[in-house]
Structure formats: C-alpha cells, structure tokens
C-alpha cells in the first residue's frame, strides 16, 4: 500500500502545526498586476481631475479598442478553421472580445473607484478615531461608560449596514443639514449623499474596529500595565505608552479584515445615490445593456482593491513587527 509521506515536517523534535500560506497573495504576478492597476488609476485620476482631460478626453479610454477587437476576430477565425480543435481558441477569442468590449467603460468606472476609495478611507480613518476611545472605555471604563460603549457596539454590529444607511438618509434630517453646508456638491467636494454615507460607514466601522481593538487590548498581559504603574506611570500613561503599542499590533489582522469589509460594503452607498463603483457600473449597464462586461469588470476592480489592501496590510504588519510580539513574531 502506498507509502505515506512524513507526517510532520520539521527536524528532531518532529512536531509542528502545519501552516499553509494561501498562495494567491504571495505570488509576484499578483504584486505586478496590482501595481499596474494603481498606475492606471493614478494616471486616469490625474488626467480627469487635475489636468482637465489633457492626456485623453474624459470618458475616452487610454487603451485602443480596435487592435484588441481585431485580435478577437482573428482568433475566432482561427478557431473556426480548426474545427473541434479550435475550442481553446474560441474560448480565448471570447476572453479577448470581452476585454475589447469592456475597455470603453474603464474611464467612467475609474471615477467610481475614486469615490469608493474616498468612502473607504474616510470611513475607516474616522471610524478609527472613534474606535480607540470606545475600546478603551470598554476595557478600562467604569460600569456606566462600559455599558454605554457596549450598547453602541451591540447596536451597530447587530443591525445591517444597509438599514443604518437608510435610517441616516431617509429617516433623519442629516442629508438636509449637510446640503446646507458650504462647498458641498461643488468642485471636488462630493454631494451630500456621499457625506451621509461617510457618517454611516464611520459609525458602523467604529463599532467593529472597537471590537478588534478591544480583544487585542485584552490579549496584552495584565502584567504589562502593572509593571508600567509600578514605575510611576499613571493609568492613562500606562495605557498609552505600554498597552496600546502592543495591543494595536495584535489588532492588525482584525483591522485588515475590517478594511476589506469596508471596500466591499462601500457598494451599499449606491442605494442612497452615491456614484461609487457599483452605482457607476449599474448606471452604465442600464443604458447599454452590457450587464456582463460591466459587472464582471466591477467585480475585478473590487478584487484588485481588496488584494491591494491585503498586500498593504501585510507590509504594515511586517514593518511594525517586533520579535516575539503578535502573530508574525510568535
């Protein structure tokens, strides 16, 4: 009967929990694709917003469609000639044809990506600002503070983000207040619906981030704070200089999780008329009926954003790693 390969992989002590790295994000091809993705985005955004369309008119893609369409039809021809053996060529022709058909929509989708990136960055940054005090309140606060913080967190984590968006947009005068603010909706400043979405994402993300940070703070051994206090630091200083630096590193995996979630759930802002990536794809699709191209393209763009975020967080984790501390140092 077949010989089994070694049950355990390491040397003399022969005991190690086998950890398999997920292959996709580690490959150099991925990093390259992501780099190309961002290069294209930056050039497109610069062209549209800063240079007023001097490199290429707004709405016109950088990439020529004609040669790719030509390639598609050629491949189709080859496939037809080869008969049954032409199947892989037919498939390739379909793929190339898809690329050709999608290219014209790239510029408008890039505008959508800009809104998505803004929503995500704003949501997570403002959310973080609220999350840190919130999590400190839950770990170190008195019973009243703790209950209030807990109530907030449970409320925002226990109801759908979409429902929260609806409440803020339809059920509160928030959008009216924002509309009154100067500069909203003019020039670079997005319209009021965008800001309502930012508020919703901030409040929601704060709740989730505070959970990750809270459990990370709890992973810091109690002895650390005791040691800090016994050299004379106050409780607040102890938290700030000893507990938080360690705790925040433990929080990185959860935090990168939240970043990915926000990138994906920013698509919900389309329900309150924000022209982010999904809404752009949907709007164009309803006009051109090119549902397949647009939504697959949108999906690929989201995927690119998510993979970028993972790579970024991996780099951050490596950068702040301290030997023996946190997941990477263990």
């Amino acid at each position, binding site marked *: 009967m077949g010989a089994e390969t*070694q*049950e*355990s992989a390491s*040397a003399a002590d022969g005991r190690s929990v086998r950890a398999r790295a997920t292959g996709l994000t580690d490959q150099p091809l991925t990093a390259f694709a992501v780099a190309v993705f961002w290069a294209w985005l930056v050039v497109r955004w610069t062209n549209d917003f800063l240079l007023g369309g001097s490199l290429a008119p707004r709405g016109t893609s950088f990439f020529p469609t004609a040669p790719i369409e030509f390639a598609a039809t050629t491949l189709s021809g080859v496939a037809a000639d080869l008969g049954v053996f032409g199947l892989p060529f037919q498939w390739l022709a379909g793929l190339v044809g898809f690329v050709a058909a999608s290219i014209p929509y790239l510029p408008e989708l890039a505008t959508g990506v800009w809104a998505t990136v803004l929503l995500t960055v704003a949501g997570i940054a403002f959310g973080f600002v609220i999350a840190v005090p919130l999590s400190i309140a839950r770990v170190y606060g008195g019973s009243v503070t703790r209950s209030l913080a807990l109530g907030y967190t449970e409320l925002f984590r226990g109801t759908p983000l979409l429902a929260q968006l609806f409440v803020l947009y339809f059920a509160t005068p928030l959008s009216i207040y924002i509309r009154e603010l100067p500069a909203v909706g003019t020039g670079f400043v997005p319209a009021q619906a965008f800001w309502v979405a930012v508020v919703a994402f901030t409040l929601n993300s704060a709740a989730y981030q505070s959970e990750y940070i809270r459990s990370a703070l709890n992973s810091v051994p109690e002895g650390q704070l005791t040691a800090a206090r016994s050299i004379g630091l106050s409780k607040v200083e102890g938290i700030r200089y000893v507990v938080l630096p360690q705790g925040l590193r433990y929080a990185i995996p959860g935090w990168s999780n939240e970043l990915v979630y926000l990138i994906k759930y920013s698509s919900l802002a389309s329900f309150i008329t924000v022209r982010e990536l999904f809404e752009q794809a949907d709007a164009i699709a309803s006009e051109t009926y090119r549902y397949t191209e647009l939504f697959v393209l949108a999906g690929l763009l989201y995927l690119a954003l998510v993979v970028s975020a993972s790579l970024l967080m991996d780099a951050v984790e490596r950068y702040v790693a301290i030997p023996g501390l946190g997941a990477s140092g263990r």
Partner: protein
Amino acid sequence: MSDPLLRLDDVYKSYGDERVLSGVSFEMDTGDVDVVIGPSGSGKSTMLRCVNRLTEIDSGAIYLDGECVTDADTDVNELRKQVGMVFQDFNLFAHLTALGNVTLGLRKVRGMEKSAAREKGYEHLEQVGLLDQADSYPAELSGGQKQRVGIAQALAMDPELLLFDEPTSALDPELVGEVVDVMRDLAAEGITMLVVSHEMGFARSAASDIVFLDGGEIVEHGPPEQLFENPRADRTREFLGRLRTEHEEG
C-alpha cells in the same frame, strides 16, 4: 536461532543538510527491553519514529519479524497495528474520555464490537492503574495519569513492540514515578520495549540492553551493568560522566 523481532540495517536519515542518522544498525529480540540514551539532538527520537514510519528513512532498511517494513508497498497502517508508540507529549485524543481513548483503535482499526472493546479497554486501564478514571477527559487528568492512559492506549492494540519516545520528559518530577512503575511492570510481564529516555534508574534496573547513540551513530551498546560500569568508548564515558555530575549537583 530465530530472527530478531526488530532489525535496523544501515539506516540513514537527513533533514536537509543535517545528517541525523548515520548508518544505524541495530537488533532486538522478543522480550527485550532496550533503552536508547544519548545527548539531545543525537537522533534518538528520529530512530524511534523511523521504526513505525512516522518519519521516513533516506536509505537502509528496517525489518519487523523478518519482513521489511520500509518497502514502498508495505501497508503502513498494518505496521502500526503491530508497533505501538507512547509519546512525550501524550497526544491523547482531547475529545474522548480515557476509555474512549483506549477503545478508539479497537473499534475503528481492529473492528471490534463496542462492548468487547469496552471490556478490553477496562482491562488495560486497570493494567496501568486508572480504572477509576475511565470516564474522565484528558484535560481533567494529571500529566502522569495522561501518560498512563497513553500507555494503555498503545497496549490495547496488542502490539509486538512498544516504542517509548521520552515518556517522562514532559512530566513534573513527582509524577515521573507512577509512569516508570508502570513501565517496570510491563518489562517484567515480558512486553518488548524500545525506550528513549533519560530515566537512568529504569535503564539500570529493567533494561536488557542499553544503546548509546551520539551524532546519529550507535557508539556502543551492552547490558546495563557493563555499559554503566565499564563503558568501552571514550564518548560513552564522557556522556555518562556528565550525567553523573549533573545528578550529583542537581
């Protein structure tokens, strides 16, 4: 003159660049109690794990009862029914009671019927003195108790050969005795045992042969009286000398 029960023939094993076993040749007969000693990293555990093929050898051969077990077409599972192992870290099945741990192999590997397996399970738990803990879970047992369940688990399969991989190294000192007592009893009952251990007391009193392994080679072997009092090789003398000083200082 019958075949030895276990024979290792010029076994080599490396991990990457590191040579862990260098031409190890070794024999033991049924009823023998052999204890392998040596400095850490000398390959003792690896040698043991090669016998039941938890680790695969690079070259050479291992024979159990005259049959080559390191062949490509040997049924590894069959081999492991005949060779039992007791681990340093116990490795008890955390989700099963002591009785469950002992009977799992009986039911799933030997295909015994549930009640017959329970009977046998109780027998072996009694053999190691843990009959009253049959329904306890591993997390509820002390280290010494866990290891005794591990021994019962291995015994229940009625193996021809029982391997012990540093069975007491992970135990607190006061718990070592109960495990060593069980091992002594087994030796007296005639169970064939190949033991890697630092427990010199056991080696001295119960072993039929002591094997000194250093740097992946068997430096020398012999009955305890001979090896401990009159070691032939210098390295053996050195190693034993170190042990003695540690023992006196410690």
